[in-house]
């Protein structure tokens, strides 16, 4: 087991900067998830840690030791690939034991380890099969087994569940959590799926265009996103944003599209330019309700356990509302109000950073509207 530290790590492919000066500390035994939109550099970052790709600048430390120039084969890590990358010509047993053949272990020790790992992952009955005779979920178990058997310092997962169907993905997610609980090894997990990120991680790193947007515990990122990007990235459907009307707003009094009105005491002298409200923080109310944001009802998606409504606030702006229970009986084009609680309001400045505000003040002024 080991910690992983990145110091000013950058990577460029030709003139294209993929990773831009990243500093990150991953603690020993931690489950860290890298998440971000495609092309954000999350897989490259994982490969830099693995040593499969050399860094352009900066240093990588594993267990406190500098490994920047140490080849991948000597870093003591294990890597699980999205494509599983099993050896197609070897059976499951040999797939798992292959790397041990040159590790100066006795035959009995190898067999003992393979048996143990196979039992742990419930693949003992598959040991004689070839990869092509296995289902996707079984292949992924073998790939994890192959990673486990070497008793690595750090596990690296590169979108390991992306090729599985939804049910299996959920099951494997659960198994990976359990596995981390059992082996307590440091795990770094790359995904584009925010559900995986939220459910697996001790801490999440949100990446965008090769930079870290925010690092923190899942709940922390969800409740207190550092900026507009993080706020928009986590949550499904994503957070609703709307620009503020700069001309009509003054210090402490914010006005925006759909009759939005809010008097807030802002921390510092920052001037918000945009508001954000999560779909689950909104409630469909009648158009006349005081303090509600006004729009017209567009359409509704009933998912059974919840429903999502689309409300048009302006020509270019459609907000979503998510709620559980019986879907409301609005018709298309009908004027509708969006009720919201001041404490669920997010404010963003010109540079996209979130601005803290004291929502208690708003309650009084909202009532007087």
């Amino acid at each position, binding site marked *: 087991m080991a910690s992983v530290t990145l110091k000013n790590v950058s990577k460029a492919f030709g003139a294209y900067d993929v990773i831009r000066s990243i500093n990150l500390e991953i603690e020993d035994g931690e489950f860290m998830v890298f998440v971000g939109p495609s092309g954000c550099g999350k897989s490259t970052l994982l490969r830099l840690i693995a040593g499969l790709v050399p860094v352009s600048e900066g240093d990588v430390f594993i267990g406190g030791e500098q490994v920047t120039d140490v080849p991948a084969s000597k870093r003591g890590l*294990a890597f699980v690939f999205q494509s599983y*990358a099993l050896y197609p010509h070897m059976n499951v047993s040999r797939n798992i034991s292959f790397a041990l053949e040159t590790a100066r272990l006795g035959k009995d020790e190898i067999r003992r380890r393979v048996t143990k790992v196979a039992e742990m992952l419930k693949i003992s009955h598959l040991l004689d099969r070839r990869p092509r005779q296995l289902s996707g979920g079984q292949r992924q178990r073998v790939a994890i087994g192959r990673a486990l058997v070497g008793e690595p310092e750090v596990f690296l997962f590169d979108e390991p569940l992306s090729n599985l169907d939804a049910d299996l993905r959920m099951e494997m997610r659960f198994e990976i959590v359990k596995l981390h609980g059992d082996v307590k090894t440091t795990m770094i997990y790359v995904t584009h799926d925010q559900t995986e990120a939220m459910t697996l991680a001790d801490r999440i790193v949100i990446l965008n265009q090769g930079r870290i947007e925010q690092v923190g515990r899942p709940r922390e990122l969800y409740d207190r996103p550092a900026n507009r990007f993080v706020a928009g990235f986590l949550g499904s459907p994503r957070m609703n944003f709307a620009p503020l009307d700069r001309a009509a707003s003054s210090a402490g009094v914010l006005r925006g599209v759909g009759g939005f009105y809010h008097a807030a005491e802002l921390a510092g002298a920052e001037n918000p330019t945009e508001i954000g409200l999560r779909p689950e923080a909104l409630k469909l109310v009648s158009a006349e309700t005081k303090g509600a944001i006004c729009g017209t009802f567009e359409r509704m998606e009933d998912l059974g356990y919840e429903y999502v409504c689309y409300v048009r606030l302006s020509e270019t702006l459609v907000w979503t509302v998510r709620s559980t229970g019986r879907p409301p009986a609005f018709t298309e084009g009908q004027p509708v109000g969006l009720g919201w609680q001041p404490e669920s309001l997010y404010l963003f400045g010109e540079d996209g950073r979130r601005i803290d505000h004291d929502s208690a003040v708003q309650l009084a002024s909202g009532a007087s509207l």
Partner: protein
Amino acid sequence: MSAAERMQRQQNRTAWLFLLPLIIALVGVAIWPLTRSIFFSFTDAFLDAPANYGFVGIDNFITVAEDPVFWRAVKNTLFFTVISVGLETLLGLAIALLLHRAFVGRGIVRAAILVPWAMPMVVSTRIWEWMLNDQFGLINKLFVTLGLVEKGIAWTAEPTLILYTVIFIDVWVTTPFMVLLILAGLQLIPEEIYEAAEVSGVPHWKRFWSITLPLATPAIGVAMLFRTLDALRMFDLSYVLAANNENTMTMSIYARDQLISFQDLGLGSAASTWVFMIIGLIAIAIVGVLRLDRATG
């Protein structure tokens, strides 16, 4: 007849219709000549009057089998095949492994390596014949200048050397073919398999022996099969270099000599049939071995 049966029958008829052009072509260029050849091998026909023949049973086959020149040709052919295909495979694998790595100018090198294969065999042979000439040849000139030999070596005239010269030229011409086929096989192996092995600490040599080689084996096997069958019926190279010199005579040249030089249609056909049978047996054996590999490896 049910509707399903009718549909099945209709589909079968369509399938045969699609196959018809191929069947006609095969009968025209392979089956008919082959049958004629085998037919003539049981007769005493001569090339100037093939309509005028009588049956002689298996006399022709016995004559060929009792001819030491034929067995000399078989020996030459087998020796040539084993050594040249062996060298081409080793060289082909080595060059393919080099070309498989990414480096600047790889595209140009890949195209350039095809040049020997793109040239007609007759042209290549003549080029090498001149380069290897004992008096005027470039190679001998080089050797003499470097002080390696005192006077030019008669590569294409010395009986003990000439078969090796034939092998050398064949290796030069057909190694690119091997390279391309093996390279295609190597490129089918996913990069991530190597990365997986690398991260788990498997050393380079082990990655080669236990991953590259077994996964490239089908491609190498098919390439060897093609080259072996090609080499077994080799004619042009030996013929251009040394005509019917016994030291380089192949089975095909022997058959051609009987048929064309001696005008003996019956004997020539019998020799051709022998060649056909020998190559056929070897082909079946190789395919069998390849299948076996696929099942157990």
